[in-house]
């Protein structure tokens, strides 16, 4: 599903050149739950952004669903993105001016679903996330856990092939964190590929593979059975 070949990313400011990713080679198959770990500044989020088609690498190749996308324009990436990818962020990133329903509905609007189809899907997914009772509330009226459930609902409402989660539990207490991780696990079990960046070794273990990054390099890759070796 995902394959990178010697993928690098450089950030250049006026005086400083920073290598965020250096010859990264990874492969992720459909149905996997992959956790990406590493210290701050190691390039986790940069990798997730590129994998999530929010950014392009400077060099190397990136194959997404059999397309070589490293040179895609923003418009091409946007099309692939909205049809195949769901995102969950640490800070939830819900639009404050929209209600729970409207936030979850947004990806379907951009995918031009009909009104009745949107309503059906949003309600289904909100039921699934157990947040239906807050359907008309605005994000600021919800707790952190509730907001993240809405964010997950939004990520899965369009039935994406893959979900990228950037520290989804970072702003949550442990009980809400567990709740979100259980949700992601059950989504994975239902067939959705999940790629998650996390600081937490415990939550990383929810995945069936962990990729460790350090200074822009992939240092180790462990399969679940190797975790405690």
């Amino acid at each position: 599903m995902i394959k990178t070949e010697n993928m690098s990313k450089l950030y250049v400011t006026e005086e400083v050149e920073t290598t965020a990713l250096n010859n990264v080679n990874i492969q992720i198959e459909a149905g996997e739950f992959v956790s990406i770990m590493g210290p701050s500044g190691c390039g986790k989020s940069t990798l997730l952004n590129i994998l999530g088609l929010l950014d392009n690498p400077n060099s190397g190749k990136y194959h997404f669903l059999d397309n070589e996308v490293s040179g895609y324009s923003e418009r091409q990436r946007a099309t692939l993105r909205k049809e195949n990818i769901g995102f969950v962020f640490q800070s939830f990133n819900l639009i404050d001016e929209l209600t729970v329903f409207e936030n979850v509905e947004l990806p379907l609007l951009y995918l031009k679903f009909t009104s009745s189809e949107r309503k059906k899907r949003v309600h289904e997914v909100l039921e699934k996330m157990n947040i239906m009772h807050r359907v008309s509330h605005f994000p600021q009226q919800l707790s952190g856990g509730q907001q993240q459930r809405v964010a997950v609902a939004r990520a899965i409402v369009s039935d994406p092939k893959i979900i990228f989660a950037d520290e989804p539990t970072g702003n949550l207490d442990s009980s809400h964190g567990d709740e979100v991780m259980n949700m992601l696990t059950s989504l994975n079990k239902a067939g959705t590929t999940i790629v998650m960046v996390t600081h937490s070794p415990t939550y990383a273990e929810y995945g069936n593979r962990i990729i460790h990054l350090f200074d822009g390099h992939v240092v180790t890759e462990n399969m679940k059975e190797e975790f405690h070796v």
Partner: protein
Amino acid sequence: MLKNYFKTGLRNISKHKLFSFLNIIGLSIGMSVTLLIIVVLENASNFDDFQKNKESIYRVYTEETNPDGKMSWAITFPELTNQLELNESIEKITKINSSFRGALDYKAKELNFNGYFADSNFFNVFSYEFISGNPKTALMDPYKIILSEETAHKIFGNKDPFGETLNTKFGDFTVSGVIKEPDGNSHLSFGVLGSYSTLSTLRNKNLLNKEEWNWEAKNPEYIYLVIDNKNDISIVRDQLSIIAKQIEPLVEDVTLSFDLQNMDDIVLGKQMAGSIGPTFAFLESMIFLSLTLMILLPACFNYINLSIARSLGRGKEIGIRKILGGNKKQLVLQFIIETFILSLFALIGSMLIVYLIKDEFITLLASGSRLQIIDISFTGYLLGILLALVTALLAGIIPAVYFSKQNPLESLASKVKPGTFGALSLRKGLVVIQFALSIGFLIGISAFVKQYSHALNFEMGFPKENILVTHLADVNFNIFNNEFQSQPGVKSVSFSSTIPGSWDNSTTVVRHLDSDDSLEVQEISVDEKFLEEFDINLIKGNGFNSEMSGNNGFAIVNQQFEKSFGRFNSNSDNKNYFITESGRTAKIIGVVEDFNKTPLQKESKPILIWFNPDKYRYAFVTLESDNVYDLRNKLKKVWAGLSSMNFEAKFLEHYLEEAYNSFENAIKVLGLQGVFVMVISCLGLLGMVVFSTNNRIKEIGIRKVLGASEGKLIWLLSKSFLSLLLISTAIGVPISYFIFDRMLSRMRYEYVGIGLFEILASVSILFIAGGSVILWQTKKIASINPVENLRSE
């Protein structure tokens, strides 16, 4: 999707109250003037729509060619109807005379009225519904009167007035009908219609002057035709040209021709002298409409400025929308819709402003009678919404494109600073344009005010105070003189053909008897006391004496005449003689000091003064300086004994002021626009200062902790904005000086120029207004407790 955009838009407007408030107020003001013009034009285009024959009704108008150029008159000769009636291309024809006005008396009730004498064909041409009476016969006989429903109600209440008698200064009239008020505006606006045959009767009794092709009298006579077949118009035009040729020998001094004007073009067409009802010059209105952009654009600039300034706060939303698949087009559409919603709110605001300023503004825009009924019709509302849409596009497109171009990751991380993408220079540029426009208006206003007060105080060469001017109307000047001169409080009485210092102007061309060099001069006919009353000193020769009255062989000239005329070669025997273009020979018997016979807008020409009582139209009554207004009321009674006409006397000063009405109007229009542009610019500046100082709260806190004084911080925050005002001044002053200097020097003969005072005053106003806005906000930010400042991180 659209629903989602509208919802987000509305919620954004209510969430960001300062932003919305500044923009709605600014756009309301900006849209109001444009909306007003649109509404006025829309109303004007609907005039007379209730007339069933509107498309085939034409008015005959007159083109006058005189030495000064061409002039169009809505009035014409009633005699034309006799010949036009024979033309088979004309289905129907009617004539009206608009002098039917004064007071209606009924059993001690008195009501002022305005109306027309109309012939019995009036209702064949125009569509009015009768409540009582017969449209075919109601205007047939002399002394018949038809009342409008409103007039009938005012005098008779609910009683049917048919057959009742009403007294007017023209005689007793019998009510022969009552008509319904028309459903809509009409250029023909009247409370009563008198039978035209009354006028003929009065003329036959010699109570009114006989009018046979007398153009000089300029009687308010109008002719309307119905021509069903458009192809026949040229036939009628041809006939009018033939008539014009035939009457050529009968009309003195000018050449006349006639043409047709469709009823559609009466209100919104060519400007004509002597028009009835309001007229709007279409071209001028269009120019005015484009000038309103000067107000609308700065308001749009504010929106652009403030939207970009707060982009930081919207980064997250834009980022999410892009990540979830929103493309550029969708984002542009979203922001345009959001601007459109804001413009719709502003449309409501601008409608309120329109209601407040419409009466004053319409008087400035519409010549002729005051346009009373201005309503926003259904089409008006649609046009208003269209205006909101155009405004939304003008104001919204730049921010929309700006937002849609942002990188989703950077937006999400709020890394987009309002200073990136050249947006800061764009915003600064817009503020500079706004304030440069403001200074332009300020300099324009001060230049016009200076010129206006100069014109009012200008030494015209004669006294202006305490001279009462009245039109002689039907009163013989000798009788007037005897009656008025003997009144206590009256110093002197004199007569002339025109009012000195007014627009009323007649010119001729003179040359020596033995030379071909000619000189264009202004003519005035006066009596023997005029020069003394107007304090115009004789420098050479003699004044008129009563024996010369009516003798066109003698004339007095002014110094300018003498100087210009003296330059021509002439035999010394003939030096004091001249011949006019009409072949009249006269001798110059005296030379007087120069004085201004016309307003300052017109170049002063040499003046030729005759002693010709036939031409007297005005009487000048100089009053003792005490209680001039009481005295005028007393004189009104004296007048009532001489004439049935109203005593329409005004002081000379008022006539002179009226000559500068266009000036006063220009000041009002410029003033209103200037205030609007200034307010909009200050609102924009306020918004910009608020947003940028809020972004520097942390910096200010740190500086304060490190010991910066409040004054220094205010200066730090203010200086970049003050420098924008300076740049605006540097750009605006020379450009507006150039524009207004050229404009005024072209219009004015006595141009006083734009001085340093006007420029300094304008710049000071700009800096006081702009500076207060800057100081108010920067002081607020600089005085926040640093602990709170730092906490805002």
